[in-house]
């Protein structure tokens, strides 16, 4: 079948692309890292990025931070925290003025030690290095092409190194060079198919080079070509249990699989490229060593734990705000409300033609 498929789960065009044939075996929970600390911890965590050094970089809003500054926490998969990165304060002060504090919201890496952060209050993109240096910032306020009105999600285009930036308050998706030269853009405000309402996170499908946008206030994910043609909607037509509730982010792995950070429902949903629901993650965290150290210093709390009726709640995600995948098929969920990152790893077999019948042989439901 070609053209628009109006199935119960998605409104979709046939998604073109050289997607691998796959036996998806599910995700294993791998680890959870992080701690609730104002310094060297995740506190006000809003977005996560990975660099090729295998480290996890989390950008934190300044809530409670003694300096009132943006803070980037860095740790590895063994829960070892490196010193925080405090982007150059003078740079920020220059951008924000003394009174106005920045509101970081999006954070992305080019995989080569460069990071890009958006600030939705001051309408800038700031460029950082993994050493904490601020290389510069740019951004002009406004609703015209190349201007910002609350930039949020940001993604480095792997094909040309340019940046895709989501513009929340005027619903535009724009492409810039890393120095801020405007390349292209699309998007309009609304709730009709193809329109956006306060979009937030953005993902990039490396197989067919399309864009997936977390259409936050429309409770859906929309896939667009780079020129803005709507290809797919995931969300509102779904069965009730899978209605999205203010999805904040979306990531796409090297197979084209889609991970939706369903923030308002405290979970992450996994879809195949065609928009078929596969599995959901509600959290499987185990206590980190740092967390255990913390409890050891509080013997009364250790004792209370023996009386808790539902300790299972500790595992669960709370207001996750971002998802990102690495080249090892790990899925990192920024569990903001619980000050940690939960990490899963996909298990699968890649299939060869001949090991797999292919969609053209499938028409009606089968049994056994």
């Amino acid at each position, binding site marked *: 079948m070609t053209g628009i498929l109006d199935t119960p789960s998605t409104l979709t065009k046939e998604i073109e692309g050289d997607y691998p044939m796959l036996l998806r075996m599910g995700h294993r929970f791998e680890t959870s890292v992080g701690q609730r600390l104002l310094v060297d911890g995740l506190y006000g965590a809003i977005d996560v990025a990975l660099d090729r050094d295998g480290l996890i970089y989390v950008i934190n809003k300044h809530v409670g931070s003694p300096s009132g500054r943006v803070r980037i926490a860095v740790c590895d998969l063994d829960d070892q925290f490196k010193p925080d990165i405090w982007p150059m304060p003078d740079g920020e002060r220059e951008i924000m003025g003394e009174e106005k504090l920045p509101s970081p919201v999006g954070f992305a890496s080019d995989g080569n030690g460069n990071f890009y952060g958006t600030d939705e209050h001051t309408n800038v993109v700031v460029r950082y290095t993994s050493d904490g240096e601020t290389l510069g910032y740019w951004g002009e306020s406004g609703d015209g092409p190349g201007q910002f009105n609350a930039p949020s999600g940001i993604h480095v285009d792997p094909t040309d190194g340019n940046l895709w930036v989501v513009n929340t308050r005027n619903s535009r998706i724009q492409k810039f060079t890393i120095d801020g030269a405007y390349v292209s853009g699309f998007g309009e405000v609304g709730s009709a198919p193809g329109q956006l309402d*306060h979009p937030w996170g953005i993902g990039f499908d490396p197989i067919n080079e399309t864009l997936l946008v977390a259409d936050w206030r429309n409770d859906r994910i929309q896939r667009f070509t780079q020129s803005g043609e709507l290809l797919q909607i995931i969300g509102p037509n779904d069965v009730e249990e899978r209605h999205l509730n203010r999805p904040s982010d979306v990531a796409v792995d090297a197979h084209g699989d889609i991970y939706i950070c369903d923030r308002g429902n405290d979970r992450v949903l996994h879809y195949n490229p065609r928009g078929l629901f596969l599995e959901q993650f509600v959290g499987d965290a185990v206590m980190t060593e740092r967390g255990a150290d913390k409890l050891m210093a509080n013997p009364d709390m250790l004792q209370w734990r023996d*009386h808790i*009726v539902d300790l299972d709640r500790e595992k669960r995600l709370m207001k996750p705000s971002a998802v990102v995948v690495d080249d090892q098929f790990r899925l990192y969920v920024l569990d903001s409300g619980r000050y940690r990152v939960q990490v899963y790893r996909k298990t699968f077999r890649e299939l060869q033609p001949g090991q797999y019948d292919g969609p053209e042989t499938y028409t009606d439901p089968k049994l056994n």
Partner: protein
Amino acid sequence: MATRAATDVGLVGHLMRRAGFGASASETERLAEIGYDNVVEGLLGFEQQPRPVEDLLERYHQDHADEESVKWFSKRWIYRMINSERPLEEKMTLMWHARFATGRSKVNNSPMMGDHLEMLRDNCLGNFRTLLLELALSPAMIWWLDQQTNHSDAVNENFGRELLELFSMGRGNYTEEDVRACARAFTGWTIDQTIPRYPNGWYDTNYVYRSHDHDPDVKTFLGETGSFGGEDIIDIIVRHPATGQFVASNIYRYFVSDTPNQEAIDYLASVYFESGHELRDVMRALFHSDFFKDAGYARVKSPAEHVVGVIKLTGEHTSEYEFGLASLEAATLAMGQELLNPPTVEGWHTGFEWIDSAFLIERVNFSADRLGNLDAPGVRSIIDRLPGADLSLTPDELIDRCNYELGQLNLEDRSRRVLTKELELHHDIPCAGGSSNPDFTEIAIEVLQMLSASKEFQFA
């Protein structure tokens, strides 16, 4: 007092200050056209208005990122007081919050405080029996009054006592034996052990009933005998004459005047009983009564009313994108009212006790500062509305016009004399050009600031 027309702007302004947090003069004029009785029905039937969707607020403000912060609930509440299309809901909730006080000083768990606030909101204008019952089931209240340590073999009377003393009948209407029986009836009403704060932050907790810890024996309470449980006790309480007086006098002091009027309270108490303890009916009777309509500016404003009232005049914070809610929360605190943290189980001391030298400086500076900001849309709109067809105003006329915009304060003669004297350099205030005339704007702003610094502005 002569009957006032239903379209009287002053009367509708009074209603909005009491049933809500005030309204600008232009908004009040619009409401007056609808007519007093219709406005009352709109306020009472607030379910017809949608509750605000607060996703954008949560998205755009920093504070929510700290899931532990009770302060965030306070800021969000202030935003809602400013913007809710159900002002009476927030006003009633604020009343019950002060009366059924719980605070973060003891309930140091923000999900519990947030749930408690939501419970008050859900029941603020419903049946008083339901409200008391939900109060007894609220984990924050259970913790606040140590009810989780009230066991069948070791009674803790704290909740039982306050239920009678502070939450319903008041002292003098029951004996120590009644307190004991009440506390025993609530044994077994407790909460689950929640997950401790470390290492992942707060988790909320749930009410649970433990039947094995409930004292099932026969109790005698206020002359009635039975193997009462908590619900039976509440049934008896809400029927008691003293409870009618409690509800009526609370509502009277909060909505009408700092000076009690027994006749009016008796009338409200009679409505309470006739309606089967329906708070909505009591409030409807109140709003239609003469004693309410005649009670303009008879109450000292609470800090929350002062701050929110001023911001409603300046027209700020109507957008979720606007930062600075923290400064409003800090302002109420500096004026002596930290929301979600009342100082004691008795809530705040009200009336003239709101006015203390440190607090008064904060009140005066806050209102003068905010009303002096020409960038605020409400202030700009006030200035724009001032000059009518006239090309000039006398000082007295300007004071009257400004006072009208602020809600027709009950200006004492002396305040008026002082302000007129301040303007005496001008026989006429040149207002040609209105807000684009810098001289006129400056003078008008000063008048607004001075009015807002007056004693009279401390009242609502």
